[in-house]
């Protein structure tokens, strides 16, 4: 029996005794998994640049943000954005591995990070509103059909689905992309804004879905006592939509999507609040 065979045997025994040992998706090191973010080793978890405390209350950026103080941005269609992590070189690599190389092992990683971002956002909102904050509906920024076919999956949709499953909130495809756009990542600010104009519109059934969710919310007995006690019962007819995307840069994509969602809501007389949760903030 050669050394090699022995070592494979030994590894087999080890993996039997230590079933949690597996290769880290990001660094490929064979090590014990911590479980906080599935698929990542503790070293890779340590390099994640979390945004613990957003400095800009609008876009969730961890540093001061001149963009959101622009006058034009006051008329934005979404309430605010929060991002889980800053977009640094390592995060860029992970996202590229996932999106462009198609390594779908990252689904759990990106989804896990987004989930933590969501909990952080929820905490912040809960302490702000003084009652438990949660969205009524989750939707995402859709990929274009062409890209969907060539890529095989819609990364924002997949992580939105992961999050929705974890927090038990319906996840619906409220938006559709009307035309294929040039990649936002290759554009400057002005081009980005122009690029996304009229690209998104709401799904033909979006209004019905919104109504349905709102009705269910009105009839469901959850936290009525709490909310009425605090005096925010009027929030019942406001539908809170959580919009998911992988990356927030200037906010033009998110804004354009939020606009389409607002249109859908307004056409049926619903007041909608659109919150954005993105995986990273560049």
């Amino acid at each position, binding site marked *: 029996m050669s050394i090699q065979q022995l070592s494979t045997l030994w590894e087999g025994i080890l993996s039997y005794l230590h079933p949690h040992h597996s290769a880290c998706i990001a660094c490929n090191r064979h090590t014990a998994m911590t479980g906080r973010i599935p698929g990542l080793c503790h070293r890779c978890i340590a390099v994640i640049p979390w945004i613990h405390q957003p400095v800009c209350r609008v876009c969730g950026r961890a540093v001061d943000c001149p963009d959101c103080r622009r006058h034009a941005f006051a008329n934005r269609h979404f309430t605010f954005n929060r991002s889980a992590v800053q977009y640094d070189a390592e995060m860029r690599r992970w996202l590229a*591995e996932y999106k462009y190389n198609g390594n779908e*092992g990252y689904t759990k990683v990106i989804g896990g990070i987004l989930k933590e971002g969501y909990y952080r956002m929820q905490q912040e909102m809960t302490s702000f509103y003084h009652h438990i904050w949660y969205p009524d509906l989750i939707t995402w920024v859709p990929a274009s059909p062409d890209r969907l076919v060539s890529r095989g*999956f819609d990364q924002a949709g997949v992580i939105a689905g992961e999050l929705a499953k974890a927090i038990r909130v319906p996840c619906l495809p409220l938006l559709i992309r009307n035309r294929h756009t040039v990649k936002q990542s290759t554009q400057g600010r002005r081009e980005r804004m122009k690029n996304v104009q009229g690209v998104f519109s709401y799904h033909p059934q979006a209004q019905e879905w919104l109504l349905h969710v709102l009705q269910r919310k009105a009839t469901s007995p959850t936290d009525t006592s709490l909310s009425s006690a605090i005096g925010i019962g009027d929030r019942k007819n406001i539908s809170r939509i959580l919009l998911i995307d992988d990356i927030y840069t200037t906010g033009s994509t998110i804004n354009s999507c939020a606009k389409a969602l607002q249109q859908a809501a307004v056409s049926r007389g619903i007041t909608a609040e659109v919150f954005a949760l993105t995986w990273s903030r560049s």
Partner: protein
Amino acid sequence: MQAVLYTVKYAQGWSLHISLDLRVDLMWWTALAKREQLSEQIWLVTVAMPLGKALQCCAYMKTFNRSSIQQETWLANIHRFLLDYSHTGASSALGSTYPHSLNTDPVGHLLWDMQMGWTEAGEYVLSSWEEDQLPGNPASSLWKRKLTDEAVYISRKLIGRSLLLNECTAMLHEAGGSLNAWKSSIQLAYLSKHIRLRSAVHPADRQKRQTSLHHRLSARLHTLHSGAAQCLRCGSKRIRYTACASCGSAACGYCEDCLALGRSRECGLLLQAVYPDKRTAQSVNSAWHVLPDTENGSSHPAACSSYDISCTPEAMQQRWRLSPAQTAAAYQALLFLTASAPVSAGQNTTKDFAEQFEYAERRMIPNVPTGNEINEYSTGNKKHIGGFSRFSSFIKNGQNKNHLRLPRFWPGRTRKSITHTNTLRSAGQERFLLWAVTGAGKTEMVFPLLEHAIRTGGRAVIATPRRDVVLELAPRIARAFPDIEIAVLYGGSDERWRTAALTIATTHQLMRFHEAFELVIIDEIDAFPYHNNPMLSYAAAQACSQGGKFIYLSATPSAELQQEIKRGTLAHAKVPVRYHRHPLPVPRHLRMPSLTKCISSKQIPAALRSQLHTSINRGAQIFLFVPRIAWIEDAVELIRSYFPHIYVEGTSSQDPDRMDKVSLFRQQQIRLLVTTTILERGVTIPRSDVYIMDAHDKLYDAAALIQMAGRAGRSMDDPAGGVFFASSDWTVEQKRALSQIRGMNRIARQQGYLK
């Protein structure tokens, strides 16, 4: 992507096909008289099915005896497969985010009948058009001509390639040919058997068992559904199944191992060339236009008939300026190349081969009737002749010996053994190992072999594990072969799609080739990416043409290869001496406490200290190898404290300034470099001494120790650099390294190569 599935009925039997553009297929099969078999009916099975599943269905239906099958049975069998597939698909679709409807209604729509002509459905298909298909009327000759031109173009471009669809379009795009109707033209090239369409991830073929019909059926279904899928590009079986929006399947597999080269997935098209000479001439003829034979297109500009095949060792030595040891080994390798391989029928007697071998020898040296001269030439001592001379005598002697000992040379007859798992060959591909000590000048030895392969009309590739080696090798080879086209391939290279007679590539790039090279030279076969990596073995075997040859280069062959040499199943030649004809520096042992102890006590033992002093005083650059990256920092501090007057640096694979530090070391700015095994290969410093700290560490095997020792004494001016194994124990691996180095020196002395 999705494909159409349709079936054709002949006078005897049926066939099932996939299509990317059904109109092309309809025109193809209904064209009279020029098909091998007269088609009677064409039935459409399903219009949009995941490509991988469609191809699996074709493979499944091929296992039936199709000659006498009834229409009902045939369609029912297809139906059964599709049902089975949609059931398994449905069960795994529960968690799917893509609830695409699977258009697998197993109806047979009759499209065409020999007597009745086109049905309504057939007419509809002919008039329909999708994106990426050639618009126009399929019946018009203009349409056909245009399509044929494009199909010819694609099949020419794909010769020797194995590309995913997006790679193929990228290649065509770069070549300037914009392909607006790739689906149609690829389909025609496929029908005319110029290219093969495969799904990039496919269940591995298994042996069929002959049992009762029922068993056979269920076994087949079992094989097709639960059989381990394999990536046909890299050979890996690590497949992850995810929902796929491009084919609509809820469980479409993709390969996790070759993601870096673009995703290879079950519904992704893998285009491979069909080798021209394997086709029968008949199938080339198409109904409308005859696709010109691609064999003309594959001829090499560099191939010239005037190349003198009967080159002598002396001429070789002069032409390439090789040392005697290099010449001898290169000559043996050349003999290996010229010896024509036996047909892989597996029934060749050894006598045949011996004859062929003798013929090859005679061809090489016209005046020498037997192989004995070579023995005398290459060495005075028969005991240590590697490679062919021993090889041939073995075969000749073997004829009189026990039958069992003979037939182990050629793949058809290879006994099942452990070597099977770790070797690169497949049927008909032979291997030769050039075992050359560190600093022997392997690259120069390869030149005559490359020249031979190219001048005789073949294509050759040198695959090396690392990019920097490719970049360093390219100009040297370009200088040696100024008149030969060279393609340099690595990740991010501009010449990615270049086809040339001579290719220098990183090993991963071999995955994009299919039966392309007559000669595959693999550098540092024992180095990291190859060692125990079935993926690259698979890629190399795929890239080598049938009957092509492998040449491995190594200074430290793996235990498996050495065992094969001992058993006599691997032809090889040893180069026991460096090009400057001085013996390899023999390592000396410095007994000292382990490095961690030295670091914690902040003391360097006297023996090592005085030895380092000697090295510094004689003006040598010092490599100091430590087994772990974490210790580099501390070791650098420790040495600086003892030798403040010299420039000491440390580097590792995780050091961003590695390149700068190595070049500073080359320029003799840095005098002592603390490093790990990353610098064990490829770095040549004129005057250097090597210290291996903790040589007993379990990370160091004999090969690593030999490679590190090989950094010393490489130049003509300073052939006797010092090598020191500093360790507390004298381990087996150290002994092995020492005995291998001594053994090589002994062979060199016996053969008279030493100055």
